[in-house]
């Protein structure tokens, strides 16, 4: 596993960070306060090719590899977790269409997704169904002309207020099935969600489908494979993006604290001179670096298309989101009362970090599957299967 970036990757990372410095950081606090992301900011992401980063060039995208995508998410997480969530959900739908779409679906949807003409939303969670997603209640029934009618509600969709194409999981006679649903579909509506602790400018929405009319050709994948394969592909992409975003959020908190402790004086010296501050700084830096390393590990496996990618990405997401919460919490502590004020970005990072532990599979779900994986690998080792 090579964790050193080559010249091209360093250049890309520099460009991502420069974009975030110029376009994201100056507006992040205002977006958070107003609970919205202005269209021109989303358009700027599109202009840079970030919305189509993962779309192959043949469909009008950038054809970016997994590591560069991770570096982009890391840079975005540094500036705004809300904006990171736009990249995340948009890329989740792109990956699902790219992997499981028919040729006709790829040709129809990928070019407008790449250009940003269409913003995508991901709709899995419901009011009463979260981690147990196989038991989704939204249903679909086919009409005589082949079209589908979707009935149900979805909740907590990042950028659900602005997305115009949704990947929605529904049941067809107990078979989990993924559908692509356009905003303008008959019987489809969205409702803004307010009062969020974090991700305040992610423009969350509920989706309502009341006999929502969906064309026959908008099934993505096959009936019965909606959760295991289509949503599975999307969630893996989501966890990967969030893991990198958490590494970025953590780095933002570290940088903020390095600046703050240098300037803030107590007892006649900058607080960086106090050993209990140094203890927290040391832990923040180390945790941040460890999160990055797990992300690099996942990136390496992603490039190889290795099956262990899924578990290693789960571990990266689990660790990086926990680290982000701890680091953001310590950053607030170091900032004292200032850290509790929205005049300092660590206050927003702290609220956003908590969301990271919940989205794209709660950390408790990650713990369960990581532990099971560990026991299974241990059994192999005991049977003489080497030292996995």
């Amino acid at each position, binding site marked *: 596993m090579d964790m050193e970036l080559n010249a091209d990757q360093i250049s890309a990372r520099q460009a991502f960070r420069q974009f975030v410095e110029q376009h994201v950081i100056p507006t992040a606090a205002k977006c958070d306060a107003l609970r919205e992301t202005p269209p021109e900011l989303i358009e700027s992401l599109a202009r840079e090719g970030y919305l189509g980063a993962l779309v192959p060039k043949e469909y009008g995208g950038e054809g970016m590899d997994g590591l560069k995508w991770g570096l982009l998410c890391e840079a975005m997480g540094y500036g705004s977790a809300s904006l990171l969530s736009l990249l995340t959900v948009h890329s989740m739908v792109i990956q699902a269409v790219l992997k*499981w*779409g028919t040729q006709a679906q790829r040709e129809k949807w990928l070019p407008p997704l790449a250009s940003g003409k269409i913003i995508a939303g991901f709709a899995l969670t419901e009011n009463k169904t979260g981690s147990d997603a196989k038991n989704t209640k939204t249903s679909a029934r086919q009409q005589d002309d082949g079209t589908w009618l979707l009935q149900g509600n979805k909740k907590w969709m990042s950028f659900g207020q602005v997305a115009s194409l949704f990947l929605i999981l529904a049941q067809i006679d107990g078979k989990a099935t993924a559908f692509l649903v356009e905003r303008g579909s008959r019987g489809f509506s969205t409702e803004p969600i307010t009062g969020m602790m974090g991700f305040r400018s992610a423009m969350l929405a509920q989706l309502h489908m009341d006999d929502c009319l969906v064309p026959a050709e908008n099934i993505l*994948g*096959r009936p019965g494979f909606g959760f295991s394969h289509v949503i599975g592909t999307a969630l*893996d992409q989501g966890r990967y993006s969030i893991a990198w975003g958490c590494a970025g959020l953590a780095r933002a908190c570290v940088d903020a604290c390095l600046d703050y402790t240098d300037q803030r004086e107590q007892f006649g010296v900058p607080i960086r001179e106090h050993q209990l501050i140094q203890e927290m700084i040391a832990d923040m830096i180390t945790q941040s670096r460890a999160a990055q390393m797990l992300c690099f590990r996942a990136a390496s496996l992603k490039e190889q298309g290795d*099956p262990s990618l*899924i578990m290693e990405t789960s571990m990266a997401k689990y660790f990086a989101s926990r680290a982000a919460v701890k680091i953001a919490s310590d950053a607030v502590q170091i900032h004292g009362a200032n850290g509790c004020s929205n005049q300092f970005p660590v206050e927003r990072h702290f609220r956003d970090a908590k969301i990271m532990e919940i989205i794209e599979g709660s950390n408790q779900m990650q713990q369960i599957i990581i532990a099971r994986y560990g026991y299974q690998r241990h059994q192999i080792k005991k049977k003489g299967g080497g030292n*996995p």
Partner: protein
Amino acid sequence: MNPEEITLKIKNFAGQYVNTDNIEADTDLFASGMVNSLFAMQLVLFVEKEFGIKVENEDLDIDNFKSLDAIHLFIQRKLPVAS
């Protein structure tokens, strides 16, 4: 690649997620609850990486993935196309 090599690779892969000593080659891995929801995509990645096969929309049929035998037959069917 001969059938024995394919069988060995499948068993080695599946053995990372289920105890292959206790299952028959035709045991339905999904219906028996032996594997979790992540296994489906791990299997896709395994087949694609190990055999150079692209698993696509039209391959989404439970008969292609439900047992060790089914996976074997699916790979054998796809291999000539891949080569």
